[in-house]
């Protein structure tokens, strides 16, 4: 099955012709998607050992089991949409060095694919580093901007911090098993303390990459500054590779985990979800807002994962498979709608030349397709029926509710609390996307950029349309994803999740059918029939005339766009209610000193801090300050002191040499 590897690296060969690269990338993604789906459904898994090097431990082995295949599917789905989009985007945005961009872009996708298929710790780490470095290059692609450089450096710093923890986890596993091959790590029996350290290192290491609270600080800085197609890949896919490894470790490598591991993951998940969405609400930079929503959704995925771990540690494989289904389903969904939204933000950025939502407005009339796809993506991410985000969030709720079957008091009390945090998260997400759509797409244009916007090129529309269509299809027919996840649960837990959850046609249910079930198709039929009835009713008995008129301005005649509500104004009540969380700084001051008292032109500034970020800043400040102090103490600029160092060093070496010579 060398075809697989060939397909992964094929687009890289075309980097001299950027357009060809994206076309080839699109087709190879399509083929990969198709192949992976077929292999997954036919339960055929491939394993190859590619290359044994003469260096010790280093061999590149690749294995496509069901878990890898599903993540290959996720990556190729997103890459299919994003590469189509890039065909127009890279040219319209007019990046310099298009060949370089195309090369890094395809190499990044290839490295993603290799990360989820590597079956050896060393080769995994190599591809993991390639992936991190290439994405760093893509983040700082427009390196002229100060913001990009700062975001990039924070990213590369945090990601290496994470990699250090991953290495520790791998070394611990190696010490216990004597092998770097993942084959030998499967369900390895570890003693309790090693297990705990492996758990912790994996959680911190991969949690950093995933953007888990409180390790998320790099994410809202790095993702927004990258080119939008790259943000889509990073938020949609790259952070999911961390989820992939977490699933591998917690369900495949470690066995007999204590229950509180799952509880910690659940706790961190719910905190990430809530904090992510609360920070998102306060943003008015569209891409940064979306980046914070990635943190939120990673939290929701971790909640599903955590509840599955709880079940698994209590030996309830059937329910564990249900929790895992919720987590993986949400992973797939988030990949789809988050990349869709990032692509949509890229399209608006391209046409309005600003990322600030306050300067958009009325785009639904100028960019109808982009707006439609963006609204579909927003409904999905807000977990509203009948689209895909709703289905996975419903599954997460159900798995939390089923957690009550575990007979531990702490779980009984805390899990409903987590569920209500999830409810708050969902409601805030909906509020946030009402803000995004209402401010940027509805109303009238707030700036010249928004006034002169027009629809983006056809490939961009197709790319977004493909992902939007998937949102609808996965929402209405969740059985597709359940069928794809079923081989994973049989691999990891020995239970086929599809037989217990999709026993009825067009209806998904909890493992115990009478506990709860859902049919999004039925729901949307209900909606359709209802709307049709209402329409007929109005047609028959009502008045169908419509008159256009200008908006009522309370008697004032100047209906200019600045009369509209703003994004900061929208989230102000929430900022005020949760002031203990945001620490908002609000200030109103006149713009010119002359007109201070009579009809002054006032400016309003609101700013809220990411509390975690300031903690990081504080720690780093103390660290940098103390190390600078130490350096200053040692290197104090006096040449006499340096000469003294040289003298001491030479004497020390001489003494060592003499001693060593004696021995």
């Amino acid at each position, binding site marked *: 099955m060398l075809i697989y590897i060939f397909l992964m690296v094929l687009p890289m060969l075309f980097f001299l012709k950027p357009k060809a690269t994206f076309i080839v990338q699109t087709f190879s993604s399509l083929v990969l998607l198709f192949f992976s789906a077929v292999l997954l459904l036919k339960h055929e898994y491939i394993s190859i050992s590619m290359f044994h090097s003469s260096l010790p431990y280093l061999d590149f082995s690749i294995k496509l089991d069901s878990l890898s295949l599903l993540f290959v599917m996720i990556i190729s789905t997103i890459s299919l949409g994003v590469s189509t989009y890039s065909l127009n985007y890279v040219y319209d945005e007019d990046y310099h060095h298009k060949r370089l961009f195309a090369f890094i872009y395809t190499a990044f996708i290839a490295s993603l694919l290799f990360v989820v298929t590597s079956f050896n710790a060393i080769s995994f780490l190599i591809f993991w580093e390639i992936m991190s470095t290439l994405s760093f290059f893509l983040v700082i692609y427009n390196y002229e901007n100060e913001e990009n450089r700062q975001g990039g450096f924070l990213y590369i710093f945090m990601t290496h911090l994470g990699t250090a923890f991953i290495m520790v986890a791998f070394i611990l596993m190696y010490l216990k098993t004597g092998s770097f091959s993942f084959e030998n790590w499967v369900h390895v029996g570890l003693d309790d303390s090693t297990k705990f350290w492996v758990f912790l290192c994996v959680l911190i290491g991969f949690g950093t990459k995933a953007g888990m609270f409180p390790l998320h600080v790099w994410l809202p800085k790095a993702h927004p500054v990258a080119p939008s197609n790259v943000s889509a890949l990073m938020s949609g896919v790259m952070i999911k590779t961390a989820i992939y490894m977490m699933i591998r470790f917690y369900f495949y490598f470690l066995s007999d985990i204590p229950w509180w591991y799952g509880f910690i993951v659940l706790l961190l998940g719910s905190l990430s979800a809530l904090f992510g969405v609360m920070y998102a609400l306060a943003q008015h930079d569209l891409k940064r807002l979306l980046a914070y929503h990635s943190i939120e959704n990673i939290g929701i995925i971790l909640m599903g994962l955590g509840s599955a771990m709880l079940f698994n540690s209590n030996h309830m494989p059937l329910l564990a498979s249900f929790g895992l289904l919720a987590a993986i389903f949400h992973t797939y969904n988030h990949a789809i709608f988050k990349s869709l939204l990032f692509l949509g933000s890229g399209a608006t950025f391209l046409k309005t030349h600003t990322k600030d939502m306050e300067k958009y407005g009325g785009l*639904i*009339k100028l960019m109808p397709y982009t707006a439609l796809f963006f609204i579909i993506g927003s*409904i999905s991410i*807000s977990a509203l*029926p009948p689209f895909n985000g709703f289905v996975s969030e*419903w599954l997460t*709720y*159900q798995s939390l*509710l089923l957690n009550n079957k575990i007979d531990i*008091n702490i779980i009984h009390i805390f899990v*409903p609390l987590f*569920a*209500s945090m999830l*409810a*708050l998260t*969902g*409601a805030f997400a*909906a*509020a946030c996307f*009402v*803000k995004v*759509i*209402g401010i940027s*797409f*509805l*109303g*009238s244009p707030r700036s010249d950029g928004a006034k002169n916007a027009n629809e983006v090129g056809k490939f961009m529309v197709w790319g977004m349309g493909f992902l939007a269509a998937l949102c609808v299809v996965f929402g209405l027919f969740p059985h597709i994803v359940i069928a794809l996840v079923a081989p994973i649960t049989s691999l990891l837990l020995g239970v086929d999740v599809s037989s217990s959850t999709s026993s009825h046609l067009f*209806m998904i249910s909890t493992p115990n059918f*009478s*506990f*709860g*079930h*859902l*049919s*999004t198709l039925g*729901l949307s039929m*209900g*909606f359709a029939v*209802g*709307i049709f009835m*209402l329409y007929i009713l109005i047609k028959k*008995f*009502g*008045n*169908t*005339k*419509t*008159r256009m*008129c*200008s908006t009522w*301005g309370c008697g004032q005649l100047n209906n200019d766009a600045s*009369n*509209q*509500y703003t994004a900061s*104004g*929208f989230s*102000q*009540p*929430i900022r005020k*209610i949760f002031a203990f969380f945001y620490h908002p700084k609000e200030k109103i001051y006149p713009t010119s000193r002359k007109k201070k008292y009579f009809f002054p032109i006032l400016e309003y500034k609101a700013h809220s801090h990411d509390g975690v970020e300031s903690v990081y800043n504080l720690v780093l400040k103390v660290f940098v300050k103390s190390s600078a102090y130490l350096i200053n103490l040692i290197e104090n600029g006096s040449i006499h002191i340096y000469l003294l160092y040289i003298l001491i060093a030479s004497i020390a070496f001489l003494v060592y040499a003499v001693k060593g010579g004696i021995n």
Partner: protein
Amino acid sequence: MQTFLMALLQFFIILIISPFIVGLMQKTKSLVRGSVGPCVFQPYFNILKLMQKEVVLSNQSSYISIIAPYIVAVVPITVAGFLPVFDSNTLMSFSGDIIAMVYILALGTFFLALFGFDQGSSFGGLGSSREMTVASLAEPAFIMVIFTFALQSNSTNISHIFDSMRGDIFFNYPVSSTLALMALYFVTLAEAGRIPIDNPETHLELTMIHEAMILDASGRNLALLEIGSFVKTTIFLTLFSNIFMPLGFYDTNTIWTIGFSIFIYFIKMSTLGVIIAIGELTLAKLRYFRISDAMMFGFVLALISMVTYRL
């Protein structure tokens, strides 16, 4: 076939009585205040009248203004298909459970808020902002209440909860159920937009939430939005009276007992409507930034109810 007919009957009962309940609340308030007030059937006439008027749309508006009223109306109507009036076989029970119901209602709120933005007036945006904030704050308490009842009856299916609550669950966990009902009362006030959270009677920008969003709606659009809000109020009262506190008469053996069950349901709903109306009269509307306290209180009640159920 018979079950289908009964399901259809229940569905239409909820739809038909919903304007009446709202009219009854208005009438009660007027009578207590000492005025005569409009007829209890006035909301029906209002809807008919509005349907016959033409729509005036802002020239800033997009297709959202055209589709949003339909969605806002159809969402509570779909949810009405979930709820049992006297029999556990309901029209839409195959397609979702009580958690899905919460999110379906949220879909309506989402489009209502978008409708508020679509005219590009500051009123609409203001209403949307307030509505989404209040809806967000009510959500955790709502889910907590639902979790409590779902755990008590060991199912999230509405019909199943209805059946088992009708048994003796309510009396098995009296403290927990009462606290959960109190929490649900707060959620109902918030979701249905009643005093002390929102005042459905005023059009002052200082006080209004729901009315601000639909300020630019007219004609059939306004009729649809009104239908949506009437049915939503009725849904919450039905949840209150029929799912979580099913003290009543439910018998589907003969046509007479069915009629009697419907009558009892009608009495219960009217009583609840009157209680809420009198509650509204005794309270002043809360300052906007105090709403979070009320919602927090509701959430704490729900939490205590969950803990008492567990202990």
